[in-house]
């Protein structure tokens, strides 16, 4: 059956009711797309079909006839998100990362926090708590990484003055 896979014409023979996920991983030897649940809940199997993110574990192969399918391999390692996810901690164990990056690609340029939250609600991550994923996406969009929410930016306090204050606080209160 003919379709476009990562920008190239593909002609793959597989059972029409085979999951697209399995066809990609086994027949096309593209193992970047992952299975986390098999029921469309986790999003680890996310691919783009005609630019829209879908759970490939829920797509029968017959339904991609003539469609454009993009997997993580199709980004060629050159997408800005693939750089920023490394730089800003968007990937920890990495199993959700291919699906997460593709879903993030579909968010378009300069997504707001609300856009990111609703746009990625179908991608579960157990490692990051999502914050670093937002930072990674905003960095790729050219946003400053720490302005996810002005009042509650995370701050790494390793400046000497804080350490000194802390130590002297302890020192002053050594007695009960």
């Amino acid at each position, binding site marked *: 059956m003919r379709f476009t896979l990562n920008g190239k014409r593909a002609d793959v023979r597989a059972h*029409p*009711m085979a*999951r697209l996920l399995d066809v990609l991983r086994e027949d096309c030897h593209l193992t970047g797309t992952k299975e986390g649940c*098999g*029921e*469309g*809940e986790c*999003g680890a199997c*996310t691919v783009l*079909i005609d630019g*829209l*993110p*879908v*759970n490939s*574990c*829920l*797509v*029968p192969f*017959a*339904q991609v*006839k003539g469609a454009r399918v993009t997997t993580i391999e199709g980004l060629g390692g050159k997408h800005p998100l693939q750089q920023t996810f490394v730089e800003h901690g968007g990937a920890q164990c990495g199993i959700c990362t291919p699906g997460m990056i593709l*879903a993030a690609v*579909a968010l378009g340029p300069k997504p707001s926090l609300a856009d990111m939250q*609703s*746009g*990625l*609600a*179908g*991608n*579960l991550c157990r490692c990051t708590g999502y914050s670093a994923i937002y930072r990674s996406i905003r960095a790729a969009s050219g946003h400053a990484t720490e302005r996810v929410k002005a009042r509650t930016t995370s701050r790494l306090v390793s400046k000497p003055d804080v350490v000194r204050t802390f130590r002297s606080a302890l020192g002053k209160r050594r007695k009960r």
Partner: protein
Amino acid sequence: MRRDEESLMPLAGCTDVYVSLNFGTLKQTRFMNLWRLKELRGVDRRDGRLRIGALTTYTELIRSPLVTRTLPMLVAAARQIGGRQIQHRGTIGGNVANASPAGDTLPVLAVADAMVELASAKGTREVPFTSFYTGYRQTLARADELITAFYIPPLSGTQWFRKVGTRAAQAISKVVVAGIAGDAPRLAAGSIAPTVVRLIRTEAALAAGQTIDAAQRVMLEEIAPIDDIRSTAEYRRRVAANLVEQFCRETKTRR
């Protein structure tokens, strides 16, 4: 619902049916792929009614200016189904055909007095959505019929929708309510009985000027929620009652 082994199982976005197929709990070997049937997609106006093709995805509903203008409660429902991935593939026809009592579009269609268009080789007919379900996961569609479209008559009154799920996204509803405000308010609820329920007696109580308390008591007699792995009958009862109150308060129906 087409559970007959020899019949063809229609497949649209597959977001419900494919899971059971892959888990082996649904044994089917013959399928009919509807995905590319353009005639079953699309939203337009026909003879004063809103026509929604059965194969319209949740994303298409959300992005449709016509639906946003005339049936905003359906957009609200579509936005709360799954996440983007599900919304790009799941269809309103699939939601209705799957016949789960927890289907999020079902209370919307019930309260909108939608008509379901069924087509077969023998021809086309329309049935009222409020009669479509005959029992738990049972519909009055014949084995050879396909849902092809929904027709929504003109509606007036503020539309209201709330889904109470297990979490903020990617959640199955514990209680889901759609309503239309006005002198003759309409209410329908899901996940509180074997099928979606149009709360006719509750509507009558509200229209007759009864208090919200009284309407809630009537509502509780119209529903039959159960304990299941997601929630309890008691929770569903009390939340359903609270949603009636919230609907009234927010749409200024009754005191």
